[in-house]
């Protein structure tokens, strides 16, 4: 027994020693350049790593462009990526390391809302800027918001409001709603926000059935047959990515696809729509996404998509938001003329910044970028040779809670 522990310990120590030279050589390179460092947190392992792969190219592109343009205050920007493993503790550990050892100027990223909250609270005590990227809980910039936290993307609340309006616009006032959502905080709050917003538009709408399978369910058939045999007119689902595709497959198999109108929360995301084809896409479905580049006809957007595609061979997702915020940050630092966090925050508050989706306001009261949500009906886009949202409307500022509401929420 002792032998095993001893040998395990030995191996561990050897590995530690092996790692030292690597760590050293890395810090050496950085000191020479004296760059402005950005800490980046996201999931590089596990199922969520795909989202990171769609996000990082945008950030690297922004940094490349800024550095090619002479950097910020004569110094280049440098991204330090870290794996938060979707875990609040891990995220906090990495953040502390980034702030204390790497001396980053700001931290950006996170997908898990609970990880984002842990990082946010820590950054508040350190008086350093934290820019949330893909974490969607609206509370992060509402109840839990503070001076040092920003969000580069839209949030779950406004997306639910946006998709509710998209449903009424495309399907008319359907009254009998069925909810099929994952049994976790995100799924429950998405449904609640959607239904509240929908009832404001269609006051006599009612819930005729609901089911709460767990995240990652691989057999939806029993749920789908129950929906097929119900009186539902509109199916709301907040299953996304792999779950959405599994559900689609099985709903085609049981003949549900296209029979009932559907509100597919996040079904318009690039990770999902790039798997669709003529036989395989959700019919009669209104979906939303953070960056529906196929529907945005501005030269800025086209150039951005081309650059990311050329760089990484992928279409951008959240990368558009990350790209925008890194640029906004660089502009603010330049404006202030120093790395004074307080002054940079003042400069960011209320700033109107350029983005691939047009001018975006970074709202002063809650530090939430007024990033829109693109809502449309899924169909064929011959020009792009893909199936994605058509006749997209960008729902923006009007879907966010007002500053007065935010103040009220924070007082509670």
């Amino acid at each position, binding site marked *: 027994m002792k032998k095993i522990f001893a040998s395990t310990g030995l191996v561990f120590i050897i590995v530690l020693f092996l790692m030292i030279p690597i760590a050293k050589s890395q810090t050496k390179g950085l000191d020479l350049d004296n760059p402005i460092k950005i800490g980046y947190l996201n999931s590089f392992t596990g199922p969520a790593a795909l989202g990171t792969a769609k996000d990082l190219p945008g950030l690297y592109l922004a940094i490349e462009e800024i550095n090619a343009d002479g950097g910020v205050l004569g110094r280049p920007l440098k991204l330090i990526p870290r794996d938060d493993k979707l875990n609040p503790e891990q995220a906090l550990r990495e953040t502390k390391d980034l702030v204390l050892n790497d001396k980053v100027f700001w931290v950006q990223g996170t997908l898990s809302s609970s990880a984002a909250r842990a990082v946010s609270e820590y950054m508040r005590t350190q008086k350093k800027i934290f820019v949330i990227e893909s974490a969607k809980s609206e509370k992060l910039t509402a109840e839990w918001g503070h001076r040092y936290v920003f969000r580069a993307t839209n949030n779950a609340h406004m997306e639910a409001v946006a998709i509710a309006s998209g449903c009424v616009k495309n399907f008319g006032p359907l009254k009998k709603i069925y909810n099929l959502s994952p049994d976790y905080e995100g799924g429950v709050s998405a449904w609640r926000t959607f239904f509240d917003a929908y009832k404001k538009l269609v006051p006599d709408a009612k819930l005729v059935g609901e089911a709460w399978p767990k995240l990652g369910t691989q057999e939806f*058939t029993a749920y789908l047959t129950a929906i097929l045999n119900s009186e539902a007119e509109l199916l709301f689902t907040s299953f996304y990515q792999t779950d959405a595709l*599994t559900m689609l497959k099985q709903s085609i198999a049981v003949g549900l696809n296209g029979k009932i109108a559907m509100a597919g929360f996040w079904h318009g995301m690039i990770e999902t729509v790039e798997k669709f084809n003529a036989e395989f896409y959700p019919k009669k479905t209104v979906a939303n996404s953070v960056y529906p580049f196929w529907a945005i006809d501005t030269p800025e957007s086209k150039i951005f998509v081309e650059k990311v595609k050329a760089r990484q061979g992928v279409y951008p997702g959240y990368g558009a938001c990350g790209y925008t915020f890194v640029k906004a940050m660089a502009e603010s630092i330049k404006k202030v003329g120093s790395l004074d966090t307080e002054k940079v925050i003042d400069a960011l508050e209320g700033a109107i910044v350029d983005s691939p989706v047009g001018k975006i306001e970074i709202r002063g009261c809650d530090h939430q970028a007024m990033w829109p949500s693109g809502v449309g009906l899924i169909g064929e886009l011959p020009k792009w040779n893909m199936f994605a949202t058509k006749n997209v409307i960008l729902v923006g500022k009007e879907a966010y809670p007002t500053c007065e509401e935010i103040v009220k929420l924070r007082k509670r």
Partner: protein
Amino acid sequence: MQLILGQIIAGLSLGMIFFLISVGLSIVFGTLKVLNIAHASFYMLGAYLCYTVTHLVYKSQNMFWIALILAPVGVAIFGGIIELLVIRPMYKREFLYQLILTFGLIYIIADIVKLIWGVQFYQVDIPPQLQGTVQFLGTKLSYYHLFMIALGPIVLALIWVLLHKTKLGRIIRAVTYSRDMSSALGINVSLIYTVVFMFASWLAGLGGTLMAPMASVFLGMDGTVTIECFIIIVIGGLGSTGGAFLGAILFGLANSIGIIFLPKIAIALSFIAMAVVLIIRPWGLLGKPE
């Protein structure tokens, strides 16, 4: 009424899928006395191999039939290697070590999958022969689901014949009954263990291959079925093949009928069923008390 019938059929199809996935777990526990927590990882591997055969080797929907033969065999070979290298040294150790080891295997296999296939998720098409739906007792059912419902009893029969009608089966049952006695009688117990583990891996791989056209193939698809597998074999009785079959059907029906009557706690129903079984018959419905 039509609603209930529809749900019963959907529940049966769900049950049959989970039978195919979980029966191997039960067999391994029965014979090797190892609780292989990583069993579902072999299921995931089967799904990925199915993708590889149908898309990378030669892209055709009909390649699914080839994959149905090749992918489970691939998983069985992988299982054999794992048994030889990792599990074998663990037989004499305490139960806890086996648990920690097989738990670690989940991460190792996940990383192997990530190295080979990356973080992308994949889609496999339903073979053309099984596309489409049929009207059955007032509800629509896809041919693919019928195919899976039919496969469950076939696999159960196959296992029964293997265990009860062949020489290998007799040896396996002897080893299951008493490892030391079989060893004393000149049976190569180590070899039998490897064969049983490979067979269980083959079953898990078969489950994964069959599920690939119906679900998405992605990293983490193992984690979502692990708990269900445990529920099923606990309900049916650890080590009992027929128990896994019964447990899977009960699990499927509890789930699909629960959706109608108790939607908010439908996913908890199978846990409740497990708790009830554990209180009344701790050795499971078809298991044997120690």
